[in-house]
């Protein structure tokens, strides 16, 4: 029997070998901001568990290296990821001296590389399986539930990022809901304004270039500058328009962040509406006109449904972009997960940076997967329907 090597598997096996034997698995620090000491897998875990984890990642690496059936590769990647996720929590408890509340244990480069290698294997398997959109969302839900279960069970409580969370649990959820409100609210406002504007640009040719140029230029203004520039006009509005201040409009805080995100969101929505409507086949429009449809009926019953997947692509771009940009709102007192990122940068407390960055990345990632699935579903459904 001859063994054949998988090309991607070679890359994965090299990363796994380096991460398991040469790189530190966890970092131990006597307190929150001193430099850490590296600990290998066998040093970070009770010896039986350490040996088990080593065995799992080595077998997983070999399965990835050789040409093996997809089901086996899927099992290897899922088991290795689960073992890593559970055992890093165990390592936290094992490395922290009993009763010591200052010591911090955080995952080190070896852990992150192993996660990266097996996520790569999992991504490769999932790509080759060519999952349907709903199966992809299903996989996302399963992964989210698994992470949620680990969080609730408290097995990660001894890790430094969760210690940062424990001391700010209330503000974490408050900033989190502010972050989501900013991202989703500005998206909703951009859709309400951008869709009609896009339709107008489609119908009125001379408007098109001008509107798109202005929106393009807004995109080139760096986000921190735009956030800052809106402070003055909104402060003026709050001071001079009766009732505005009571409505929550103020110079600093959420209002300028909201307006800035709204302005950035307009271009993708308007541009994709215009492109989507322009891509509606002439035959479809002619047929609708021939049937005696009014302009309004044609817009809602023919053009809009056909342009929908393209418009949705614009909305996906906006949502992912807004979740990322909302982090910057923290610089002008607008709240959001950015608060932790910038606080952490200021105190050189990297666990605090992670507390802000990880949920942001997770949110953006989940939004991208869900909207990609929705886009695929809407566009295949339309293709499948008889014209």
């Amino acid at each position, binding site marked *: 029997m001859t063994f054949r090597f*998988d*090309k*991607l598997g070679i890359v994965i096996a090299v990363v796994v070998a380096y991460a398991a034997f040469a790189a530190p698995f966890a970092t131990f620090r006597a307190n929150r901001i001193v430099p850490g000491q590296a600990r290998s897998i066998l040093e970070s875990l009770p010896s039986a568990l350490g040996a088990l984890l080593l065995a799992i990642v080595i077998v997983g690496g070999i399965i990835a290296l050789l040409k093996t059936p997809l089901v086996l590769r899927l099992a290897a990647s899922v088991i290795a990821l689960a073992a890593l996720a559970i055992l890093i929590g165990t390592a936290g408890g094992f490395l922290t001296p009993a009763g010591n509340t200052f010591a911090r244990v955080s995952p080190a480069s070896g852990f992150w590389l192993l996660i990266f290698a097996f996520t*790569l294997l999992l*991504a*490769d398997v*999932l*790509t*080759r399986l060519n999952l349907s959109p709903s199966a992809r969302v299903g996989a996302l839900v399963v992964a989210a539930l698994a992470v949620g279960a680990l969080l609730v069970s408290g097995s990660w409580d001894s890790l430094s990022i969760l210690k940062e969370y424990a001391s700010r649990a209330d503000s974490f959820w408050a900033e989190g809901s502010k972050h989501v409100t900013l991202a989703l609210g500005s998206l909703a406002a951009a859709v309400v304004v951008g869709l009609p504007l896009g339709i107008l640009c489609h119908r009125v040719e001379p408007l098109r270039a001008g509107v798109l140029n202005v929106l393009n*230029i807004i*995109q*080139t*203004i*760096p*986000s*921190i*500058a*735009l956030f*800052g*520039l809106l*402070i*003055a006009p909104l402060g003026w509005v709050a001071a001079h328009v009766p009732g505005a201040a009571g409505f929550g409009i103020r110079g600093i805080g959420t209002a300028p962040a909201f307006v800035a995100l709204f302005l950035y969101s307009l271009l993708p929505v308007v541009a994709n509406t215009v492109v989507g409507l322009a891509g509606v086949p002439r035959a479809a429009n002619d047929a609708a006109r021939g049937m005696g449809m009014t302009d309004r009926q044609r817009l809602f019953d023919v053009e809009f449904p056909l342009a929908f997947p393209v418009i949705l692509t614009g909305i996906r771009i906006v949502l*992912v972009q807004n*979740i*990322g*940009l909302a*982090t*910057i709102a923290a*610089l*002008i007192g607008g709240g959001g997960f*950015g608060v932790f*990122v*910038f606080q*952490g*940068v200021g105190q*050189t407390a*990297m666990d605090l*940076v*992670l507390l*802000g*960055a990880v949920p*942001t*990345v997770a949110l*953006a*990632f989940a*939004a*991208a997967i869900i909207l*990609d699935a929705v886009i695929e579903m809407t566009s295949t459904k339309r293709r499948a329907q008889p014209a």
Partner: protein
Amino acid sequence: MKAWLPALLRLALLVLLVAFIASPGWFEPLLRPLTENGAPAIYNQGSLLTLTLLHLRTVLVATVAATIVAVALAILVTRPAGAEFLPLSRSLVNIGQSFPPVAVLALAVPAVGFGEKPTLIALFLYGLLPIFENALTALTTLPGNVMEAARGAGMTGWQRLVKVELPLSAPVILGGIRLSVVIGLATATIGSTVAAKTLGEVIIAGLISNNLAFVLQGGLIVAALAVLIYDGLSAIERYAARRMGRETA
């Protein structure tokens, strides 16, 4: 029809930009009304010219590195030997694009410390994606008859790549580079939150001291740079496309 008007506007913008960076003092009366309590109207904690040059250098270094790596990767996965990586690399690009630049920047700090390096890493990683995606699109949608002809003419794989595939792909790859540069110019300002020397310093100094004039001049310089560079690269792209007889989208 009035083809000279946009060109004239751009020239005026360029002249204004150069004048402002070289001698910001001339514009002091314009920015004066934006300040309060006699605060300085022109950034006074460093020279705007130096910051602009450092800003451009950061973006340039990151973009050149990103271009080399992204194009090399795209070439690799479109060769028969690397074809196995093609589907995976597509999904990785898709996943990568959902990472917010601020998060990349913040996560790079623990690995390499404060200063210029995390900014370069964030710009490099974020610049990779548009270039890789465009290079991949270009290399996988080359006209079949041209490739056939090149093969028929007895060209080796290397000759086809250098003499046919890359020149034909150049306009689309340039489009990716342009996108990456514009994103990079704006993202580099955020780099100043981790102590990189870029124009973001001016904006952040303005935010901290509540000085709108600083915020405005920092923001406008970056925006003007972005608009001019975007236009310049578009022009190069159109030139390349004309030479290749391909229409850009």
